[in-house]
């Protein structure tokens, strides 16, 4: 008797993952995989555009023409990242408008780090060094994630993020060699941004329920705690070069593990910020909603004009 091989789509999908092949928009994929990606990519896109706000704050106050140009170009890069990511999410069957809606009504999240205020010029350095630094740590493995459009977007984004990180480091280095006031300004910024940056890797593995599934789907390659440890190890060394301390009395090299030990993270604060009670949650969302609402007549007019052009072209 002949045996008939029936390959179910689920097997094809898993087989592709195992062989490190990319899943493309037209391929069959399990619904939870699609939903996980939509949630993650849109959240990532929102983080890029909300992230423009705290730094955008300082474009008009940048202390030199060169710094002004670099900062403006950086914040503009973030808009570009948002654009790539919204486009990647759209391939999964959700519109940009719908994603904006979810951001504006609070249904979609974005990185909690952007709910902290930028109080001095040194914050621009600290954000570049720590926040873009943490972002790179999270994002480099995403260049190899299983969903093709997302992985390709991440390759472009990571190139630019490493520039941002270097620029931030360079701002802090300049401040560290500056006047006592400048050094104090920079140390204060590092103190304020350190712990929120540590939280950017998400809750500890023990309380991160989706990690195992995401790793099976090859969306995630490392756990939150693994990435966080990598980040600490790198920053602890770089802080020495900068001559700044990190605000953690328990931070200490551990020869046995070959890593830096660090103190407990205030997860209560993290949860507060995630749930809307961070220092700037309201300002950030208000700014995004305002930009969208103020732009409505512009988008309508652009559509109306395009429609008229189309009619004209058809009549011609």
């Amino acid at each position, binding site marked *: 008797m002949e045996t008939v091989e029936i390959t179910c789509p689920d097997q094809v999908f898993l087989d592709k993952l195992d062989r490190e092949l990319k899943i493309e928009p037209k391929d069959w994929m399990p619904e939870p995989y699609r939903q996980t990606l939509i949630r993650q990519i849109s959240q990532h896109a929102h983080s890029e*555009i909300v992230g423009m706000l705290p730094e955008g704050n300082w474009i*008009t106050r940048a202390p030199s*023409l060169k710094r002004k140009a670099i900062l403006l170009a950086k914040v*503009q890069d973030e808009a570009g990242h948002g654009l790539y990511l919204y486009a990647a999410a759209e391939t999964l069957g959700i519109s940009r408008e719908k994603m904006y809606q979810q951001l504006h009504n609070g249904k979609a999240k974005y990185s909690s780090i952007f709910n902290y205020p930028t109080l001095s010029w040194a914050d621009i350095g600290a954000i570049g060094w720590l926040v873009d630094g943490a972002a790179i740590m999270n994002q480099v493995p995403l260049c190899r994630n299983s969903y093709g459009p997302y992985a390709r977007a991440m390759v472009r984004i990571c190139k630019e993020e490493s520039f941002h990180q270097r620029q931030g480091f360079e701002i802090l280095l300049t401040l560290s060699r500056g006047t006592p006031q400048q050094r104090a300004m920079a140390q204060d910024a590092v103190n304020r941004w350190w712990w929120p940056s540590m939280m950017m890797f998400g809750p500890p593995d023990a309380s991160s329920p989706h990690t195992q599934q995401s790793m099976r789907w090859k969306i995630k390659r490392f756990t939150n705690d693994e990435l966080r440890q990598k980040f600490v190890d790198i920053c602890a060394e770089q802080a020495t070069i900068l001559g700044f301390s990190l605000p953690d009395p328990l931070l200490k090299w551990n020869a046995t593990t070959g890593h830096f030990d660090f103190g407990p993270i205030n997860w209560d604060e993290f949860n507060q910020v995630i749930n809307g009670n961070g220092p700037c949650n309201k300002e950030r969302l208000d700014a995004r909603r305002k930009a969208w609402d103020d732009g409505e007549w512009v988008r309508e007019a652009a559509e109306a004009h395009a429609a008229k052009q189309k009619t004209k072209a058809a009549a011609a």
Partner: protein
Amino acid sequence: MQTMPASLLPDTTIINTNARISYVLYLADNALILGHRNSEWCGHGPALEQDIALSNIALDLLGQARHLYQYAAELYNQLNPSAPVTEDHLAYLRDVRDFRNCLLAEQPNGHWGQTVLRQFFFSCWQYYFYQQLQHSNDTQLQAIAIKSLKEVTYHLRWSSEWVIRLGDGTAESKTRMQQAAADLWPYTHELFQPAAFEQEAVSAGYGVTPGSIEKDCLGRIQHIFSEATLSVPVTQPGLHSGGKTGVHTEHLGFILAEMQFLQRAYPGSEW
């Protein structure tokens, strides 16, 4: 107590008595102030694509400003080698009365339509201006004009398209644009009225006769406005001028207060 080193503040007498430096600063201030205004939009545009496009224009203008300030600093330092200045001294340590930018550049962003219209009027002027400046007998100005013209050609196209889109779009957008035109138009006249340093620049062969490009500018504006189904306001040159001699609108003081804050609060620091 820390006192500001005397060399920090550019000597305004040197600048005011030198037509070439004044001229270069006029062009630099124009580009910086409008670039600064445009950069205020970053993160708040009506769509991501437009946010990026306007930031690009801001970056181009900032780049032009830097070339011009660097050249002005070079001219200044030849006259005053004992206390040399950089582009940043000129941008961050001069006060309102020393800035020479046209009043149009410093007008508030308002809504998106006002911003694109302000850009359109300015780019239109810059386009014809730089075309002429390409023939300057000052090789530095010539080089800056050639480089900038490529950018400005794009700014003019981009802003023209937006003026057409919004003028022709909906009833609401048309009303808004016609109002924006009425508000901004009075500030266009001063661009074509020569200041003393411009007259000197023309006689020395390195500058552009401001009035000589007015007809081309107006023609271009009329053409784009008619495509946009908007009417060009009719006003006589009046009192909405003075930027070139440092008599500004109240807006510039606030721009400078914000822009110059760090340089003023922490004098003599490296950033």
